[in-house]
């Protein structure tokens, strides 16, 4: 899904406000000068197939408006939304309905289940609206309920279910028609923390089974960091930064973004591969049966040890200057979260080597690099 120059102003005649925005005015300025509320200021981004794209920001930053522009629950004032080569913003209502029935579904913060329908009937709603016959939609709805672990509750009504279960039904309703894009508007924000974490895991599990494109709105930095492949941070109707969680933690675009993620425990977000690097003090050695050239190199450089790789780049071990044998050190996996490495890095005599899934050497994590990261991630107050 490609979004280009998407804008929304809440006015009967949007032109003056749009012109003012195009000349670079801020949301506050447009409100002061024209008394027009601005929802989204000139947003352009791509959402990749199969990723969880989190849009986050404080309340009033325009994120809820943004997600409603994507399925035109709110009509955009300008810009394009392209999906599979079609421009959704230009689509007549009649064709838009077809796209909504087939390709998109939505999960709401307040669950928005129909109280007069059972869980099964709620889950079947999208298919029913699309005119799918009764037996087929029943099967699909039941499968969706089973996917979210509510197969046994199909006959229950929403008021008989807890908040978490209601949102599972909401999720099942969104999954039942097998959409390519799911829009989730603060889907877990109304749930208490324990259930919220459970639902996040559920979502990640579903995503592992079948990767869908998910646009997830959240104001919760921890949540965004946990589930996002990429995050877009919004402030006052603008997107101020788009990047992976690690990128945003490492290089926040401005103080707003930095402040937003201050409370986040970066050691749970960042992975070993994000920290792994080779600097001047990292000595890389070629593996060979004859250790002498390598040892000679170490002494030339005045280094105490070096990291040995085979010709294809796989990590073999660490060679120390005073020992002729390779030390078989267990390298850290690139995907391991940093918090799982803390003890090893702290107790290891040398920086910890990191490898990817194939065993290729990615770099090392030193104590200094680790401490610096933890500090920047906001454990310290600087």
């Amino acid at each position, binding site marked *: 899904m490609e979004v280009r120059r998407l804008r929304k102003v809440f006015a009967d005649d949007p032109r003056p406000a749009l012109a003012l925005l195009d000349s670079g005015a801020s949301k506050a300025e447009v409100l002061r000068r024209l008394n027009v509320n601005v929802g989204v200021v000139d947003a352009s981004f791509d959402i990749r197939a199969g990723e969880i794209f989190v849009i986050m920001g404080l309340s009033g930053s325009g994120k809820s408006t943004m997600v409603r522009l994507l*399925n035109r629950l709110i009509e955009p004032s300008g810009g394009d939304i392209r999906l599979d080569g079609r421009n959704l913003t230009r689509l007549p209502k009649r064709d838009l309905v077809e796209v909504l029935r087939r390709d*998109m579904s939505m999960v709401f913060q307040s669950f928005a289940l*129909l109280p007069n329908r059972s869980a099964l009937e709620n889950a079947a*709603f999208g298919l029913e609206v*699309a005119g799918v016959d009764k037996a087929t939609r029943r099967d699909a709805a039941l499968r969706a309920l089973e996917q979210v672990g509510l197969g046994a509750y199909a006959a229950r009504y929403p008021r008989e279910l807890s908040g978490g279960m209601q949102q599972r039904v909401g999720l099942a309703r969104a999954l039942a028609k097998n959409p390519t894009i799911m829009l989730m508007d603060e889907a877990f924000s109304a749930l208490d923390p324990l259930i919220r974490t459970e639902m996040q895991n559920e979502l990640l599990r579903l995503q592992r089974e079948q990767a869908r494109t998910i646009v997830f709105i959240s104001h919760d930095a921890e949540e965004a960091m946990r589930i996002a492949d990429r995050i877009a941070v919004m402030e006052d109707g603008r997107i101020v930064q788009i990047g992976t969680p690690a990128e945003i933690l490492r290089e926040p675009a401005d103080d707003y973004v930095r402040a937003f993620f201050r409370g986040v425990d970066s050691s749970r977000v960042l992975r070993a591969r994000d920290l792994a690097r080779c600097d001047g003090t990292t000595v890389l050695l070629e593996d060979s049966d004859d250790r002498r050239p390598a040892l000679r190199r170490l002494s030339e450089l005045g280094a105490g040890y070096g990291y040995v790789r085979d010709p294809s780049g796989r990590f073999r071990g660490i060679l120390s200057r005073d020992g002729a044998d390779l030390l078989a050190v267990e390298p850290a996996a690139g995907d391991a979260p940093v918090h799982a490495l803390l003890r090893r890095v702290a107790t290891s005599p040398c920086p910890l080597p990191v490898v990817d899934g194939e065993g290729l050497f990615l770099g090392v994590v030193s104590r200094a690099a680790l401490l610096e990261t933890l500090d920047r991630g906001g454990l310290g107050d600087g």
Partner: protein
Amino acid sequence: MDEWLAETIGGGIGYWAEKLVGLILDHGQPTLDAIAAVVDGFGGAIDGALLGAPPWALGAVIVAAAFWRVGKGFALFTALALGAIFAMGLWEPTASTLGLVLASTALSLLAGVPLGIWMARSRAADGVGRTLLDFMQTMPAFVYLIPAVMFFGLGRVPGIIATVIFAMPPAVRLTALGIRQVPPELVEAGRAFGCRDHQLLFKVQLPNALPSIMAGVNQTMMMALSMIVVASMIGAGGLGNVVLQGIQRLDIGLGVESGLSVVLLAIVIDRITQSFGKMR
């Protein structure tokens, strides 16, 4: 100045009203006849069914409804109430009044619910509709009884039509209110999953407005009941007629008996229809 104003404007309105009624009488007779035929056929069918059925059968149906919708205690009350009406010898006019109320309510809903839906969706319709409803509710009934008689003659038809005019507004208002009060996120959900307008109405809005609409049905029935004496003045018959007889003959006994029958019938109808307004 005052007199001039009164004559040109005030007199003007009266003059034009007379003109309008005259115009309808002169040119609208086929339409009026058609309306009369439909209303008479409908009202007659209900009346015929209620009066044609043996009292015990009709009574049993009502008691069963009371038991199903409300409960054991109220079913007992209903049985006693109907028994009392029968014992007072007022079964026939009561059944006839029930028929009038049902016919008027059905017609009120037929016109009122769509009007309410329209008012909930369109601001313009809402503005015009509100004014119209204010007229219908506050214009003294006797004012439109006269043209009603001129249009439709005496009998059941003008009685039903006058009752519909008086009793329809709550059905309209509560339908519009109910639809407007459907939580916006449910409407959003409907739209997000690709509902067309009619699907949104029938699958999301009306089911969720049902308690409010049923409250409207209840109110419409109560107001229809309160019109029966006025309606009987133009020949609608039923319990209203008996009440009128009591007044005319200064027969306190008959007045109290017929009045009590109206009250008992009202309680039974009220409780049963109210039960539909509660979400199960």
